[in-house]
């Protein structure tokens, strides 16, 4: 059987996949690239697992001695990392919810009802999202110092909320606000592209049945948008978590900084040797790495949603 069928199949395969040599070369190159790409990270992991005394004794690039999680424990306690994780949480969670909510509202209005200026609005949002942050930081910094913000209540996690000093500067609300404003562009763009693929009849039917606009948005359209919302949430979580610039310039007290921006101060103060630096950096990177490996599909689809259209 096999002896008969083989000659018939062989020529076809030969045309398709070319020589095995080329395939080996391709895989060899890709494996080499991946090894090269993962090396800095792998090296950080390796360094973080060794006590400083061992690297000092055996040499920095060496094998031997003990391996443990002491550096991680030290980084957590000495540099008070849990406090900074909490600071990040205070910024990322509200910013994420607000930006997705506002963006889906704009996207809904723009894609389901032909406002005359909707194209202008989308273009304005998208352009704003593409600006380098440094273009707006100088006036924004002054605005945050001047704009009054009352002190209304004592909110757990935030302290005096929304502001303990009467202005936007040095407040979580301020950092959240700029994240929302800046990220609105990308989210609106992605969501409105998606919503346009939902048949208009669905909206119209609900309106004819007497549902109000907000109800159509909330009960009809939004539940259908789960895929792009999941993708955007994954992506925006990573972006806002990874923000270094906004919090660095718009917060004053180092103790209030989110973890990524705090890293700048922590580096010199607490991470006295490279083994601690490695452990500290990995701890800070951990949430984004976990999200990436668990939700990789959402992550990639979110990123490409914005780019492949057109």
């Amino acid at each position: 059987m096999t002896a008969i069928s083989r000659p018939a199949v062989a020529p076809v395969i030969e045309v398709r996949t070319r020589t095995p040599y080329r395939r080996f070369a391709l895989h060899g190159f890709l494996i080499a690239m991946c090894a090269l790409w993962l090396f800095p990270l792998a090296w950080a992991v390796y360094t973080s697992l060794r006590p400083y005394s061992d690297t000092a004794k055996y040499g920095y690039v060496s094998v031997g001695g003990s391996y443990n999680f002491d550096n991680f424990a030290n980084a957590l306690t000495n540099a008070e990392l849990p406090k900074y994780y909490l600071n990040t949480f205070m910024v990322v969670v509200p910013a994420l919810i607000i930006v997705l909510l506002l963006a889906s509202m704009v996207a809904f209005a723009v894609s389901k009802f032909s406002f005359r200026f909707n194209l202008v609005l989308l273009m304005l949002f998208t352009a704003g999202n593409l600006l380098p942050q440094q273009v707006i930081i100088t006036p924004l910094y002054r605005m945050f110092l001047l704009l009054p913000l009352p002190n209304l209540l004592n909110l757990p996690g935030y302290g005096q909320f929304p502001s303990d000093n009467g202005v936007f500067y040095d407040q979580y609300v301020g950092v959240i606000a700029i994240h929302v404003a800046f990220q609105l562009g990308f989210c609106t763009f992605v969501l409105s592209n998606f919503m346009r693929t939902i048949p208009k009849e669905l909206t119209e039917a609900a309106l004819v049945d007497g549902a109000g606009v907000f109800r159509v948005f909330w009960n009809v359209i939004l539940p259908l948008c789960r895929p792009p919302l999941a993708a955007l949430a994954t992506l925006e979580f990573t972006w806002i978590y990874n923000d270094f610039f906004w919090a660095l310039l718009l917060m004053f007290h180092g103790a209030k900084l989110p973890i990524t921006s705090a890293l700048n101060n922590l580096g010199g103060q607490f991470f006295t040797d490279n083994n601690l630096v490695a452990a500290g950096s990995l701890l800070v990177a951990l949430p984004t790495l976990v999200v990436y490996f668990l939700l990789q599909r959402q992550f990639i689809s979110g990123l490409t949603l914005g780019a492949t259209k057109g």
Partner: protein
Amino acid sequence: MGASRTPAPVGVDAAPSTTVAGGAVTTRRRRRYSLLSRQDKLVLALMVGVPAFIHIALVWFPTISSVLLSFTQWNGIGGLDKIKFVGLKNYQDLVSIYDAFWPAVAHNLIWLGVFLFIATPLGMFLAVLLDKNIRGSRIYQSALYVPVVLSLAIVGFIWELQYANEQGFINNVLGTTRQDNLIDWLGNKNINLWAVLVAASWRHVGYIMVLYLAGLKSVDPTLREAASIDGANERQTFFRVIFPVLLPINIIILVVTVIESLRAFDLVYVINRGRNGLELLSVLVTQNIIGESQRIGFGSAIAVILLSISVGPIIVYLTRTFRGERL
């Protein structure tokens, strides 16, 4: 997004009491959106208005203010009435007496050049390789993409482990850790920009790879078949058929590359706060607003230069993305 899009009958069971309002409007006027009541219109206006206000107030108002402030002098002390109009003086000082300006422009250009001619093509090349149906493509993609999920500040710290003087991996492997032959990768102003660019490219390549892969997946497979039937080899197929078809995504990748090089900030800031060979326009802007001597007008002038460089790519992006769009 191959998501199932079954039209779920959610919310169709609307309360009958509201039909009265809807019906009244339909009979009153025959407009395109007669289904909307006055209250609906108000709700829609709020849905668009609130986010638009936030965006314009926090992004576009400061952008315009940057332009206006760049013609003024203000040290930030005292009220807004202390702002003094000085015309083009900030720009003249910038190009003539501000030492850090031209090095920063040069570094930004080098940054752009390395991204444009090395990192971006490498990302595209990897995408082309991974687009073939090879075994383990997903694993390769995951590995190459990992750096993109790290913040640039973390990237800086992770690469410091490679570049550090006595404890760094590279110097230890090269045996250049003694005082007489030490290579100061991040401190020597002749090489530190290149060292940083290796780290920045490490992250940029994966980003471009994913964007380009998505583009390649959207190419009509019959194009490839037609090309191969016509006897084109892989290289010819890519350069003569696929690459031209992907013009829109090529332009988007070009824009992303330019914008990313203008935004570069975090990496050099964590390494040495953007001094001594690592000056960039973005860092100069912030240096003029943090600290004791605030030169608001001067910092804004640098911001306006950044703005004017980014306007071109942004317009290209917008015209590409929204061309032929009728919402």
